[in-house]
C-alpha cells in the first residue's frame, strides 16, 4: 500500500504499524500488519473523519515519543499507558478486529487468523 493513499503522514503511519504489531505480535503466526491490519485501519480512517481526527491526534503523540524506533518492551509500556484512553481503545479494538474479522474488511489476509484458531468455514 503506497503511503500516498494514506490520510496519514509517514511518521504517523510508521507509529501505527509499529503499534499494531505490538497489539498482535508475530510468533509462529503472522503479526497484525503481516495480515493487513494496517489496511483495515486505513478503511476505518477513510470511512469516518471523526476516527481520522482521533487517530491523527493519538499517533502524533506516539510520534513525539519516538514510538516506532523504541524497543518492543518500551512500546508495550506506552500502549499500556494509553489503553484506557479513547484513542487507545480504538487502536486496540481495530487491531483485534482487523486480525480476527473476515478478510473482506481488509485484514486477516488469507483467513490466516482463522487457521491459527481452528475456525473453519465449511458452508
Amino acid at each position: 500500500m503506497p503511503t500516498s493513499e494514506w490520510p496519514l503522514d509517514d511518521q504517523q503511519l510508521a507509529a501505527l504499524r509499529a503499534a499494531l504489531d505490538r497489539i498482535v505480535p508475530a510468533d509462529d503466526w503472522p503479526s497484525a500488519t503481516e495480515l493487513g491490519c494496517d489496511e483495515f485501519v486505513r478503511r476505518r480512517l477513510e470511512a469516518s473523519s471523526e476516527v481520522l481526527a482521533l487517530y491523527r491526534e493519538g499517533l502524533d503523540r506516539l510520534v513525539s515519543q519516538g514510538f516506532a524506533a523504541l524497543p518492543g518492551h518500551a512500546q508495550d509500556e506506552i500502549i499500556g499507558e494509553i489503553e484506557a484512553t479513547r484513542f487507545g481503545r480504538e487502536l486496540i479494538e481495530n487491531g483485534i478486529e482487523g486480525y480476527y474479522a473476515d478478510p473482506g474488511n481488509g485484514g486477516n489476509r488469507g483467513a490466516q487468523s482463522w487457521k491459527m484458531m481452528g475456525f473453519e468455514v465449511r458452508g
Partner: protein
Amino acid sequence: MSRYDAIVVGAGAGGGVAACVLAESGKTVLLLEKGHSLDFASTGRDHLRNHRLSCYGHSTGPDIEGNPRVFEDEGGEDRVVKPHWGEYNNNASCVGGGTLVYGGQAWRFHPLDFRMASTYGVPEGSSLADWPIGYEELEPYYERAEHEIGVSGGPPAPQMPHRREYPMPPMPATCKGERLRQGAARLGWSTQAVPLLASSIPWQGRKACINCQHCVGFACPVDAKNGTQNTVIPRALRTGRCRLETEATVTTLVGDQREITGVEYVRNGARETAHAEVVIVSCGAIETARLLLRMGLGGDEVGRNLQGHIYASACSLMPEPIWDGVGPGATVSTLEFSHGNDGLIGGGMLADDFLVLPIVFAKWHRPPDVPAWGPENKRWMREAYRRFVTCMGPVQDVPSRESRVTLAYGVTDSVGLPVARLSGTTHPETIRTARFLQERAEEWLRASGAERVWGRQPSLGLSAGQHQAGTCRMGDDPAASVVDSFGKVHGTRNLFVCDASVHVTNGGFNPVLTVLALSYRTTTELLRRW
C-alpha cells in the same frame, strides 16, 4: 387511492403471519414494510456489520442514516443513537424482520409465564401482571406456527404440553452438545434439543440446513432458516390478493379514535394513501408504540412496560478441543430453572450458544485475566477457541412502567417524524434471578468437565433489541392495558396489534414463536368476527 380489506404495517414475524392468514381467507391485503427485501446475496457475511455484531453498521436495516432514536443514559442525559449502536435496541428492519437473521429458537412460553403475578405476587415498583389468556388458549396456534413456519426439534419439552411432535427432527448432535447433555445428566437435570425455526431436512421445497458456521445474525446461504420472508409472506403473495410494498414508511393512521379508515405512507419520496376495513400494526414493540403515540391512539399505557431479556451466561474451557464446527450450534437446553427457584421471581431457559465467530470470541468471551492485546492475548485466541463452551439463557424480565417508549420531540427521521425515545430499565428483581441463572450455567459447565469457568455479572439495563416486547400490553381493563385479549386496541373498532408489543410479560424464552402464535390467534379471531 387504493382500497383493501386489510392493511398490515410491518412485514416481520407478526405482520407476515397476519398478511398470510387474511389473504388465504379471501381478504385483500396491503402489506407495507419500511425496510428492503433482502437475502443472503444482498447481506453477506461481514463479521463486523451483521445482526450479531454491528460495530460499524449492519446489513439488515434500518438504514443507518435517517433512522435515529434517542436513548436516556444512566445519568439521565438524552443521547441521539444510531441503529447499529447497542442503545438503539435494534431489531432487523426488512421483509421478514428479525426472522431473516435470527437464530430461530422456537420456544413456547411456559404455562406459568402467563401467570407471573398470581404465581409470584407483584414486587414493589414493578408492573408484573398475568396475561388475560393462558397457555391452553395459545397452544393450537403455537402448533400452527411450528408446522407452518417450520421447526426442527424434539421431543418437545414436557413443561409445555404439545399435541403434535415438531414437523422436523432435531439438528445433528454436536460434540459440545453431547458433553453438556452428559453434564446435565450428572446433575440430574433433564435436557432437550433446542427447537429451531430452521430445517433439519428439506422443507417446503427448500433445502435442509447445511450446518454452516454463520447462522445467528446472518441470512441463510441455502434459505433453510424459516422466517416469514420465505414461508407465509410468499404464500400471501401467491394468493394474488396481497400486495407487498417495501421501503414504505407509514406516516399517518387515517381516521378517528374509534375507527381507522386507512393509512398514509411515503414511498420513493411520493405520498400515498390506502384505505381498508381493518388496520394491523406490527412494527415491533418500539416502532408500534411510536406510531400509536404519534397518532394519540391506545391511551396512556402505550409505550410503557418496555422489556426484552437480560441474559445470564457463563463461559468455560474444556480440557481438550471440542469445537466441531457443526452449526447452527444451539443444541441442548434445560428448563430446570424456568420457574420454582427459591425466593426468586421466574427464571429462564439455559442452552448452549450458536457457533461463536472468532471476532465475537475475542470481544465478548475473554476472561478478566487475559489481556486485551499482546502475545498473551494471541496465545489465548489460538489455544482457547476450540476448547471454549458457553451456556446462556434469557431471564424472565420483571417489567416496570418506567421502562418505556416516548416520543423524542426535536429529533426526527428521514420523513420528518419524531423518533422513539427509550428510557428506564427493567425492575431490579430481574438481576437477582439473572445471577442465580448465571450460577446454574457455571454449575452446568463444571459438571460437563470444564477445567475453567468464568462469567460476567449481569447488570441492570434496557435490553429490548431483538426480544423487544410489552409496550402495548394485552389486558381486559382498558385503563391498565392497550389491547384486548385478541389484539384489538381498546376503544377502536378496527385497529389491531400483531407483534410482541402485546406481551404482558416476555417469558424466560426467546419470544418469536409466541409472536407468531399470537398473530395466528388474533387474525383467526378477526376473521371469525368479520
